[in-house]
């Protein structure tokens, strides 16, 4: 296991290096730059545009810029935002809690898909099983962000008509800044929508895995030995069915972190996704690269942890 950890750590570092290099090149090769926002101002002088690029070292060859960036990055200095002038790490840390809160609440609720999958697997062919399967198909067909927008519009119009606010409009008024209940209320809809993805995914995978495990001889033996249903589920079914679920969760979490942009945009949670979009549209290179490295590192670490967990969950797995 120790050798595995060291080997994976080295692989991860090399992977991050490759990601940083490719990402850096792509971001810098895309047209744009910190001077672009001034370009259509008739008053701006070409000397100002040139000086801005010089100041940020953007006139150096891109590989030179990359190596300068890399030297600073290994010292955990990812530079400063061209726009806000804050260090990249500060901007990420400011945005991260919003993303984590948004994603975590949804992912945790989404894990309810696991017991749901076990439930319907054990009642294969029943009404509950059919209902969940149909809803799964429907849910997979509808983009959750679209559903979110429709629900916002519906509840908003309902509130205007009747005065009853079921759900709030996105956006944080200043007077609700310290209102925890209001914050939780804002989280309800996006959490449910993110959880919906989890329910669909985990219920489907769990059902499939549980059905596969249920057909195994050792499960039949355990049942015929007289073990309780709970004991069979806990000790035999769940443990064996969990492996692909861990894999899915491991790949889902980083995907949500990096792909939270739509939910953040719709529900007004200024997190990593919004930070990324703003950075890319405003050519704020340090932020764009910083977010890339952060999400990549996070993904690599999560996948690494998932690999470790395999070994714990499944004793047959040895490294």
């Amino acid at each position, binding site marked *: 296991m120790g050798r595995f950890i060291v080997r994976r750590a080295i692989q991860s570092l090399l992977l991050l290096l490759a990601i940083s290099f490719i990402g850096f090149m792509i971001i810098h090769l895309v047209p744009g730059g910190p001077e672009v926002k001034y370009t259509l101002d008739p008053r701006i002088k070409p000397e*100002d545009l040139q000086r801005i690029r010089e100041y940020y070292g953007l006139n150096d060859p891109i590989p030179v810029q990359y190596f300068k960036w890399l030297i600073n990055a290994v010292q955990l200095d990812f530079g400063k935002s061209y726009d*806000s002038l804050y260090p990249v790490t500060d901007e990420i840390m400011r945005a991260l809690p919003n993303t984590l809160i948004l994603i975590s609440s949804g992912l945790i609720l989404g894990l309810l898909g696991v017991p749901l999958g076990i439930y319907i697997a054990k009642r294969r062919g029943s009404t509950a099983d059919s209902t969940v399967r149909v809803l799964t198909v429907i849910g997979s067909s509808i983009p959750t962000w679209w559903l979110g927008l*429709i*629900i916002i519009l519906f509840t*908003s119009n309902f509130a205007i008509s009747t005065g009853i606010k079921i759900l709030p*409009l996105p956006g944080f008024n200043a007077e609700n800044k310290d209102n925890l209940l209001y914050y939780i209320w804002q989280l309800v809809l996006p959490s449910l929508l993110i959880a919906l993805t989890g329910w669909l995914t985990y219920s489907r995978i769990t059902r499939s895995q549980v059905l596969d495990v249920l057909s195994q001889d050792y499960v039949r033996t355990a049942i015929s030995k007289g073990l309780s249903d709970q004991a069979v589920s806990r000790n035999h079914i769940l443990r064996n069915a969990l492996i692909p679920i861990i894999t899915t969760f491991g790949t889902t979490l980083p995907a949500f972190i990096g792909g939270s942009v739509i939910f953040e*945009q719709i529900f007004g949670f200024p997190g990593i996704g919004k930070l990324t979009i703003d950075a890319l549209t405003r*050519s704020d290179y340090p932020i764009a690269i910083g977010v890339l490295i952060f999400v990549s590192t996070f993904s690599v670490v999560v996948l690494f942890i998932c690999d470790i967990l395999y070994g714990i969950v499944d004793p047959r797995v040895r490294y």
Partner: protein
Amino acid sequence: MRNVRRSAFPLLAALSLLLTIVLGACGDSTPTTAVPATTQAVATVPPAVPTAAFNSTTTAAATTTTTAATTSATTTVAATTAAATAAPTTTVAAGPKKGGTVTMVTSLESKSMHPYNCDDTYCIAYIGRVYGGYSGNTMQKRDPKTLEVIGNFAKSWTVDKEAKTVSYTLKDGITWTDGKPITSDDFLWTYQQATKKENNWSRYAQNICADPCTADKNGAVGYEAPDAKTVKVKMNTLTFDIVEKADFILPLPRHVWEGKDWLDPTKNPAIDNPTVTSGPWAFKEWNKNKNWTVVRNDKSTVWPVPLLDSLTVITVADASVGFQKIKSGEADAFENIYGFSTQDEAEAETLSNSTVYKWLPANALWQHISFNFRRSFEADPAFRQALTWVIDRQALSDKVYNKLAVPMYSDVAPSSDKYDDKAVTKWGYDPAKAKQILKDAGYTLKDGKLIDPKGVAIPKLKFVYSSDSPEPGKVAAVAQQEWKDLGIELDLVGVPFNTVLKTIQGEPFDFDFVTLGWSAGVNPESFGDVWKAGPSLNWGNWVNKEVNDLYATAQREFDAVKRKALMSQIQALESKDGPYIYLVAQTAFAVVNKRIGGVSGTPLGIGASYLANDYATSWYIK
């Protein structure tokens, strides 16, 4: 059959639920007796007004010069007094009470509150409210109703034409929010910091003549504070708007900022959390990307004290959420510069609790199709004229800009006091005339393709537009359709704005046409700098010595009547055969909840944004 029935019921239930949600969202849930929103048209074209509140007079007085008698004996201009400025007291109609909060929405938030790291409308809006000005609008400002140049921090100024120097005299008794006086030393210190190279001021070359300072460059060459109330700015060139051009420093409180990092907000909290400011509003808090709040500055000395207790700006994801907030009363106002489009105005008209204000700004946003004069066929006036005759500006205004635009014919927007309706050539929509022009010039059509007088077929041409907003794509589609009838085939290339710039500003200038917009200045005379700027701004490579000379003369002409005559000549030349197919100038709009009073329309807006130079100080809750 039993399984079908079992699976059909939950399916039907789910479909019913979904249908209910969709119908609920799409159906109009507003009362059927809803009163349509009130729409107010605001003053559009301002009456002819003086653009500078000073008059230059010469005096044949004794001079201190020791040079030969052939030199001018005039050294100074008679002191002038700025037009009467609003005293820093509240003057409103009887009845409005102090108090209340207004919430505005924006979909585009500022990234910084550093006055010298701020270059978009969103951050200027924040900075203007707390500092009472911004670069270019500090010592003086435009009266939002008359557009006259009036005092802001300065009560008066004098212009020494010989020395090309402006001397501003600060108003009496102006203070920071902590009670300390605002003096010329604050201006000088701020100038010294802003102009340090390591502080990376983006407007350095625009405002300072340096590196090297040649005779033709604008910009300041000196900045002094001879006494506590006087700021003297020496400029390199003398232009009619020298009072405005010399006003490029917004002062920061030296006693707060000195010794702190100029650029790093982690080391200098005053950057994004300014507690000592000079504007009508005092900064309260900023939750980035969520909301920004300011409170009434009861000690405001430069500006009138606002009537409202506080003003909050909420950042929303997009216009649809913003509308819902206005509709539900969670927010009170927005202006179209804050991320709302012309399509949103139509929906705004349906809001029963709000008033929609529309106006053609004196500093309008205007759109054009630019030629690329590097192409031989585009250098032919007949070719350009024919293309212009098949662009229906009124149709563009109606269909693309939802009637929130007016046709435009030169660099000067119709809302400008320099606009000369008689001078411009008003291109209509006449496809037959376009074809005749081409025919008379020797062009022919063969298999639907246009052949030039030399017998060479016009190739498929590249029309570049920004895909960041819908209007440019629509303009491109109109051009494609109309020009096809003339035998010109277009390849429409919609790319992000950054890519558009890269394409049109650098070799190999791989475009034949591009559609873009400009933001007009209140002084259209300054637009002439675009034609001298090279491909960074003059991407079409249009060269017209006569127009350039007229602009240069206009910029030096202090007589408003003469200057207007020069601008008329420019408009005549450009509209007849200029660098662009001028399209439209856009109307601005704003939506304000009816519970708010004191909102008055001006050619610069209604006070929701910094552009109106009002900062909502006169707004109150009815």
